C-alpha cells in the first residue's frame, strides 16, 4: 500500500538543498559593508537628529540621499543596465534591514522606488536618458499623484483630466483636477500622475501615466497638516496645466497597468522590519527600567510577533531566490508590518505614563526648556500620531485583506 522501499530510497537521492536560515558568506560580507558605511559615511548631523528622535528637514533628507548616491547605492532595487546595484533579493533585504536598524530615514520611494522602475520598464529611450540619472543622483525630488479627494481606495475612479491638444505643431496635454495626500509635494521638482484621458470605456482603461514639472504654471500646492502637527502631505491643484505630450509614459490608456506594476514593485522592506527592531530594542531598554509587568508582557508579545514577521519576509525572500513568484502574500507583510509599527509607537506612549499628556509637536521642545518626564514621551506621541497613516496608505490594510481574499482564499 505505502511504498516503504521508495521512502527509504528517497533518503539516498536527495540530500543537498537543506533548509538553512543563515545568509551566505557573501551576504554577510555585504552586511558588514553596509554597517561600515553606516558607521563612517552616513551623514553625522542626520544621525544625531534621528538618534535624538528629532524630525529631520529637507536638507537632511537631501544629504542622506546624496550620500547613498555617492556610494552607488541609490539604485538599490534597479538592474545594473540602468545604473542600479542589481542586488539579489537577500542583499536588498539586508540593506533595508541594516538602514532601518541604524535609524536612517526611509529612502524616499517616489523616485527610485516608484517612477524610476516605471520609466525604465515602459518609458522610451529619450525619457530614460532624461530622467533616470537625475533620480540616481537625487537631483530631482519626485512626488506621487495618485489619490484624489474622491478617489482613495477606489483609485481607478480618479477624475483628474488630461486632454491632448496641438498648437503650432506641438502636442501637449491640458491637465485639470486635483491630487491629495501628496507626500512632500512642497519639496518636489516633479510629480508622476495618473490622469484620465478617456471616459468612454471601463474606468481602468481610460487612465494614463503622465510626468509633470511642478514648476508648470497652474499648479498650486496647499499643505495638509496631519494630527501629529506636521506638514508632510499636501493637496495639489491643476488648473489648465500644459504638459508636453512627450511626458506621457508608454501608451495612452495603459496607465492602470503601469500603476499596478509600480505598486507590486516595492515589495521589499514593506514590513519595515529593521526600523521596527530598532524601536523594539529601545522599548525593551526603557521598559526594563520601569519594573512594570504589564508593559513587559506587551513588549514580549511584540518581540515574538516581530520575529514572526521577519521570518515571513525571509520565507518570501527564499521563495524568490529559488525562482518562485510570491504573489499576494506580500499583503501579509504590509498588514502585519504596519500594525507592528503602530503597536510599537503606542507602547512608547503607554510607557510615558502621565507624561503622554504633553505634546510639543513633531519637532520636539526646540526653543523651550524641556519639561519633566521621560525624553521619549514627545517622540512616542509624534510617532504614534504620525504612523496612523501606515495602515491607510499604500492600499489600506482593508484593501490588502480584499486582495488576500481574492488571490489566496479564492473568494
Amino acid at each position, binding site marked *: 500500500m505505502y511504498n516503504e522501499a521508495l521512502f527509504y530510497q528517497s533518503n539516498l537521492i536527495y540530500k543537498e538543498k537543506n533548509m538553512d536560515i543563515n545568509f551566505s558568506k557573501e551576504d554577510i560580507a555585504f552586511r558588514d559593508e553596509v554597517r561600515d558605511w553606516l558607521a563612517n559615511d552616513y551623514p553625522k548631523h542626520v544621525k544625531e537628529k534621528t538618534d535624538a528622535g528629532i524630525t529631520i528637514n529637507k536638507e537632511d533628507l537631501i544629504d542622506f540621499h546624496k550620500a547613498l548616491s555617492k556610494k552607488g547605492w541609490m539604485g538599490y532595487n534597479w538592474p545594473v543596465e540602468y545604473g542600479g546595484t542589481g542586488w539579489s533579493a537577500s542583499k536588498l533585504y539586508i540593506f533595508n534591514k541594516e538602514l532601518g536598524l541604524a535609524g536612517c530615514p526611509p529612502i524616499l520611494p517616489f523616485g527610485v522606488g516608484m517612477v524610476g522602475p516605471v520609466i525604465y520598464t515602459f518609458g522610451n529611450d529619450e525619457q530614460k536618458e532624461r530622467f533616470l540619472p537625475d533620480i540616481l543622483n537625487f537631483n530631482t525630488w519626485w512626488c506621487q499623484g495618485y489619490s484624489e479627494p474622491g478617489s482613495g481606495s477606489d483609485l481607478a475612479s480618479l477624475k483628474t483630466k488630461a486632454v491632448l491638444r496641438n498648437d503650432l505643431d506641438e502636442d501637449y496635454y491640458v491637465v485639470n483636477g486635483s491630487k491629495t495626500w501628496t507626500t512632500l509635494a512642497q519639496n518636489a521638482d516633479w510629480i508622476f500622475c495618473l490622469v484620465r484621458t478617456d471616459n468612454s470605456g471601463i474606468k481602468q482603461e481610460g487612465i494614463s501615466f503622465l510626468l509633470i514639472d511642478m514648476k508648470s504654471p497652474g499648479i498650486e500646492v496647499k499643505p495638509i497638516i496631519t494630527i501629529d502637527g506636521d506638514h508632510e502631505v499636501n493637496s495639489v491643484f491643476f488648473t489648465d496645466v500644459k504638459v508636453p505630450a512627450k511626458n506621457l509614459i508608454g501608451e495612452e490608456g495603459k496607465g492602470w497597468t503601469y500603476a499596478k506594476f509600480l505598486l507590486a514593485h516595492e515589495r521589499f522592506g514593506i514590513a519595515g522590519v529593521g526600523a521596527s527592531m530598532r524601536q523594539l530594542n529601545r522599548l525593551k531598554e526603557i521598559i526594563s527600567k520601569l519594573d512594570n509587568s504589564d508593559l513587559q508582557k506587551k513588549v514580549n508579545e511584540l518581540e*515574538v510577533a516581530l520575529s514572526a514577521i521577519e521570518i515571513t519576509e525571509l520565507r518570501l525572500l527564499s521563495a524568490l531566490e529559488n525562482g518562485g513568484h510570491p504573489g499576494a502574500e506580500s499583503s501579509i507583510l504590509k498588514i502585519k508590518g504596519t500594525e507592528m509599527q503602530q503597536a510599537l509607537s503606542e507602547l512608547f506612549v503607554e510607557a510615558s505614563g502621565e507624561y503622554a499628556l504633553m505634546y510639543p509637536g513633531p519637532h520636539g521642545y526646540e526653543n523651550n526648556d524641556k519639561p519633566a518626564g521621560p525624553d521619549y514621551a514627545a517622540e512616542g506621541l509624534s510617532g504614534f500620531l504620525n504612523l496612523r497613516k501606515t495602515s491607510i496608505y499604500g492600499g489600506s490594510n482593508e484593501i490588502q485583506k480584499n486582495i488576500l481574499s481574492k488571490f489566496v482564499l479564492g473568494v
Partner: protein
Amino acid sequence: MNLDYNDEQNMLREQIQKFCESEYDFYKREEIVKSSNDFDENVWNLFAEQGWLSMPFSEQSGGLGFGPIELSILFEEFGKALVIEPYLSTVVLSGTLLDKSTFSEKNDLIEKICTGSIHISLAYAEVDNGYDYLSPSTTLDSKFALNGTKTLVLNGSNAEKIIVTCTNDDTLNIVVLDANTPGVSINSFSTVDGQSCSEISFENVKLDKSNIIATGNDAENLLKETINLATLCICAEAVGCMESCYHKTLEYTKGREQFGQPISGFQVLQHRMVDMFIESELAKSLLIKAMLEVNNRSDEMYKHVSALKSYVGKSGKLSAKEAVQLHGGMGVSEEMMIGHYLKKMISIDALFGNADYHLKTFS
C-alpha cells in the same frame, strides 16, 4: 538562505498526508475515540511499517536519524487529521529521552518502540510544581525506594514502562520502571482532545541502580531537551490545526448559502478568514525558525521554542474559535470535525507551559 523543504521532506509530508486521507479520516478517528481503547493498535502497527516510529532515533539505535524538521512535518500533518495515537508520549517524550541517554538497556527499548511493540510514558509533571519540571517532589531515597505522585502522564494506562523524574538527595534523577512493579498505582482519565492520561502514585517502590537512566546535570539537560523537542512537536501540531481551521472554514463558507448566496461572499467573513490565514502563516514562520534552531542545537533553541509556544497558544486558540464561529451552529456540533480543533488547541496550550508562561520564559 533556503527556507523551502527539501524533496525528501516534501515526500515525507505527502506520504503522511496520503495515509491520513485514506486511513485516518474523521469517522475513523471518532470510532477510535469512542472505543474502549485509547488508540488503534492497527494504526500504530501501520505507523511502525511506514518507519514513522523509528524517525527521530539515531542510526546507531536503529532509527532513521531524522531530526526536528521531519518530526515537525509529521506533527503538522497529525494536527490536520487530529491523530490521537500516543506518538508524543512513546516516541518523542520517552523514546528520544532514552536515545539521548547513556542508559544501558536503551537499544533494546528503542528497538521495541520502532517495531510498535512497547509503549512507554514519561512521568514529568506533578500537582504542585507548575511548569517547573526540574525539581520534582517525588523522591528516590538512599535505599532506592521511590515515593510520590505524578500527574498528567500521557498514555499512562497503556505504558508497560514508566520513566519517572525524581529527586535523590537534592539532585534530579530519571529512572525507568515496569508499570506493574509493586507499589505503583495508576488512575486514568481522558483528555479534552480525546487522548488519555494518568495519575500515577509510587509508594515505596523498590528500585536499584539498573533503573537509573541519568542523574544530576545529565538528567536536567536530558529532561529539558526532551520537553523542548516535545513542545516543538505540539506547536507543529497546532500549526497544522490552524491551517486546517482556515481551509475547512473556507470550504464550509463557500458551500453554505444564506440570503441567496454563499456566505463566503460576505466581506466581514472574508476578512476574518484572511486573519486566520495570516495567523497560520505567521505561526508557520515561527515554527520554521524554532525547528531550525533546535536542529542546529543553537544556544537560542529554548528561547525560540518559547516564542513559538506562546504564539500558537494564543493565535491557535483564536483561529479555532473563529472557525467554530464561522461554522455557525455546525461549529458547536460534536459530529463536525471543526469543534475538535478547538479542543486540540486547548490541550496544546495547556501542555508544557501555556502562552503566558512561555511569553515570560522567552524574555
